[in-house]
């Protein structure tokens, strides 16, 4: 348990991806089975302790040091699990601290009435970091800034394997993953990927670079609309039906309507959308479905999900990935023609004469349903990862607005001495006074040289400091590019941008002439209108 606690502790303070990977790899190499496997399960969200819910901890603290001191402590720390971990004193007589395996094993079997006693015994035996880690483990979600994908990347790294090789077999594995570690560290055979509903690593596209198109032969490519939804994989075999995100995260739970409509054996690639009648709803509607663990009936009715298919990887046990795109497409079309399907349709091919014609078609689209175009070589096999050449994405030109820099925050890792996270705002009128309202945050889009310039500007124009954040004079206009915009009740300004980035620093423009929140709301209203 101490090694796992030390790992969580270090991860929770480490913002940089590479450093996180190094910490997880070191843990997985140094800690023996089965504890390392349980640690991996905790990081990938594979543990659940139905009887040990955080509500059990209520009362622990007051019993321990009395209500007055406990409330003063809780007020100061602000987090219940952390407060408990800190006020509890280690009892040397409590024996050795439990191993992670012991914790997992015991909690999975303990009843609701046994659990508090067990927890107290462990709290006595552990040190403060160990107690904190134990209490973090109970709700199942660790929240130490590690995605399942990152943890899998670390696993792959310790065996010098690509992450997709781990991803492919992942859904056939169960904690504590002994065959996985035997394969990665001890040359045992690779575990089989035959488990039902296994995820196959998807093929990704590269953005088209300036001028690249001219060198390509239009006849070698097929074009599809790039839909503004979420790339998903529908995988069904051996009676197991699943919906995965592009990163291999199982999102079936949030989309029972899709899972229910699966009546086939195969692996399909497509775009997840919310669709009402023939209309694709704004991305925001889809996001509302995504963020929910349990879906209400009302949500299912108001925000019906739909998958627009564009590729097939496996059908009735046959692996089609080595076939060229045209042949896979023909198989997909023939299969779709077999019978009408609820919740699935085919993303049409866009026919075009030459690049100029295609550019014209691309210009002709507006609104939130379409993000741009995908170009796929007619002879391309389906390859995992992001191979250079066969698939290209050609996004619509970004939207631009002029905003005023309001706050800057220090970055992390290499950027930790630079102010590199920028909050910007637009003007609005409140009680006949003009004020800036924050509308978004950007931390990329600039060159290293521009970053140095921005950092100096921030330091020279600071008016206020809050920890790592500086408030600056509202004097600098930034041209912000973004890919989409929608109304949002969760943002103070009422709008949310997709992928905002700093396009240009507009030292030439007076701050008073920057855009207004009203303008942004108009853009959002226009984006919400269906394109088709």
């Amino acid at each position: 348990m101490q090694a796992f606690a030390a790992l969580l502790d270090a991860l929770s303070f480490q913002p940089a991806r590479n450093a996180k990977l190094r910490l997880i790899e070191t843990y997985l190499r140094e800690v023996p089975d089965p504890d390392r496997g349980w640690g991996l399960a905790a990081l990938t969200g594979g543990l659940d302790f139905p009887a040990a819910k955080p509500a059990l901890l209520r009362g622990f603290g007051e019993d321990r040091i009395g209500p007055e001191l406990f409330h003063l402590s809780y007020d100061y720390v602000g987090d219940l699990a952390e407060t408990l971990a800190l006020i509890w004193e280690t009892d040397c007589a409590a024996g050795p601290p439990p191993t992670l395996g012991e914790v997992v094993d015991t909690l999975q079997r303990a009843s609701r009435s046994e659990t508090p006693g067990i927890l107290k015994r462990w709290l006595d035996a552990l040190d403060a970091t160990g107690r904190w880690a134990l209490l973090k483990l109970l709700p199942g979600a660790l929240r130490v800034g590690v995605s399942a994908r990152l943890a899998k990347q670390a696993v792959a790294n310790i065996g010098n394997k690509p992450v997709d090789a781990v991803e492919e077999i992942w859904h056939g594995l169960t904690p504590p993953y002994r065959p996985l570690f035997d394969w990665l560290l001890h040359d045992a055979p690779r575990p089989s990927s035959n488990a039902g509903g296994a995820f196959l690593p998807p093929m990704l596209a590269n953005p088209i670079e300036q001028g690249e198109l001219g060198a390509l032969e239009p006849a070698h490519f097929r074009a599809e609309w790039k839909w503004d939804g979420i790339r998903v994989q529908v995988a069904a075999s051996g009676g197991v039906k699943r919906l995965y995100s592009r990163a291999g995260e199982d999102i079936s739970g949030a989309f029972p309507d899709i899972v229910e409509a699966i009546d086939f054996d195969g692996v399909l690639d497509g775009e997840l959308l919310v669709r009402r009648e023939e209309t694709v709803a704004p991305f925001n509607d889809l996001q509302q479905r995504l963020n929910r663990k349990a879906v209400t009936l009302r949500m299912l009715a108001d925000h019906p999900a739909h998958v627009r298919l564009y590729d097939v990887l496996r059908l009735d046990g046959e692996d089609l990935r080595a076939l060229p795109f045209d042949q896979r497409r023909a198989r997909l079309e023939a299969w779709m023609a077999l019978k009408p399907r609820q919740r699935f349709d085919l993303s049409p091919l866009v026919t075009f004469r030459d690049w100029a014609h295609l550019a014209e078609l691309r210009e002709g689209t507006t609104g939130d349903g379409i993000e741009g175009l995908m170009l796929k070589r007619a002879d391309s096999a389906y390859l995992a990862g992001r191979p250079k050449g066969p698939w290209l994405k050609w996004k619509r030109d970004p939207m631009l607005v002029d905003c005023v820099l309001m706050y800057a925050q220090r970055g992390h890792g290499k950027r930790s001495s630079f102010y590199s996270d920028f909050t910007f705002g637009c003007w609005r009128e409140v009680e006949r006074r003009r004020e800036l309202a924050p509308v978004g945050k950007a931390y990329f889009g600039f060159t290293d040289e521009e970053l140095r310039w921005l950092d100096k500007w921030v330091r020279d124009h600071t008016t206020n400091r809050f920890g790592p954040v500086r408030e600056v004079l509202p004097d600098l206009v930034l041209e912000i590019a973004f890919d989409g915009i929608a109304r949002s009740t969760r943002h103070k300004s009422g709008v949310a941008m997709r992928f905002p980035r700093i396009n240009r620093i507009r030292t030439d423009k007076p701050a008073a002439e920057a855009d207004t929140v009203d303008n942004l709301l108009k853009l959002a209203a226009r984006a919400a209108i269906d394109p088709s």
Partner: protein
Amino acid sequence: MATDSLNPRSWLYPTPRGLYCEPGGFYVDPAVAVDRAVITHGHGDHARPGHRAALATPETLAIMRARFEGMPDTAQQSLKYSETVRLGEVEVRLAPAGHILGSAQAVLTWRGQRIVVSGDFKRRPDPTCPPFEPVPCDVFITEATFALPVFHHPSDAGEIGKLLRSITTFPERTHLVGVYALGKCQRVIRLLRAAGYDKRIWLHGALVSLCRLYQEHGIDLGDVAPASEAILETFRGAIVLCPPGAIADRWSRRFAEPISAVCSGWMGVRARARQRGAELPLVISDHADWPELSQTLKDVGAPKVWVTHGREEALVFHARSLGIEAEALHLGGRDEEDG
């Protein structure tokens, strides 16, 4: 030993300039320059420049001379631990406080009543100063920097172990360790040496003179050198000590992918560690934690405790639950110290 009729607040009480001892005619750790001061230790919120006369341990006076240029000899009155001197009608002794080099508690006796002003103190061993001496007294004035039950400082050796382990995990990265220039810096160096780390330890310019002063007082810091004198490649995998503020400063850009460690008692609370931007928070404190504060109240056995300098509320509550007559004593001029 106390005369029950004597109210301690009649001869030692807070004023806007600081804690004033009337029959002695002196202030203890005053917030502004005064005619006569007794100084517990060299930290900036206790030792201030410009007193016409200052009484302190020889080590504290040396620290004050290093910090305040042109302190006249006539202004300094040196008093070793265990020696006694009379100021006005009051007998003054300085007892070790275990906080930093030269740190002392002011033990004041008048008409048979004894008040101990602890200044800042801690109870765990510190290789750079003698340990805290519990002095039985009628009134104990205690600091309360970490006076909440959430503060249980872990073992120093364990925290230093975290730093050494991080260097093994990230051997190519410079470890920037934020430390308070007086006391924490030198203690961390001694702890690293005790853990077997014998490589050169690099110092930010602001730490150099106080390290030299500690060395002159016989505290062996091993191989230390200013970080300005070397090229970038030297710092890969090295430990560089600096004031906490320098980590976010342009100064830190000279290092390759630095990892920022911060040594302070505040690092025990995650939100505080994050606020400081620490990637490697190390809970190493020169102040007593909650169990040490509680133990000290029992050790000195004072029937009255005045609590100052931090989170008074919890400690007053706790002292009263131990049957001690406790109250908060509000003194101006104290910043939240680095801890």
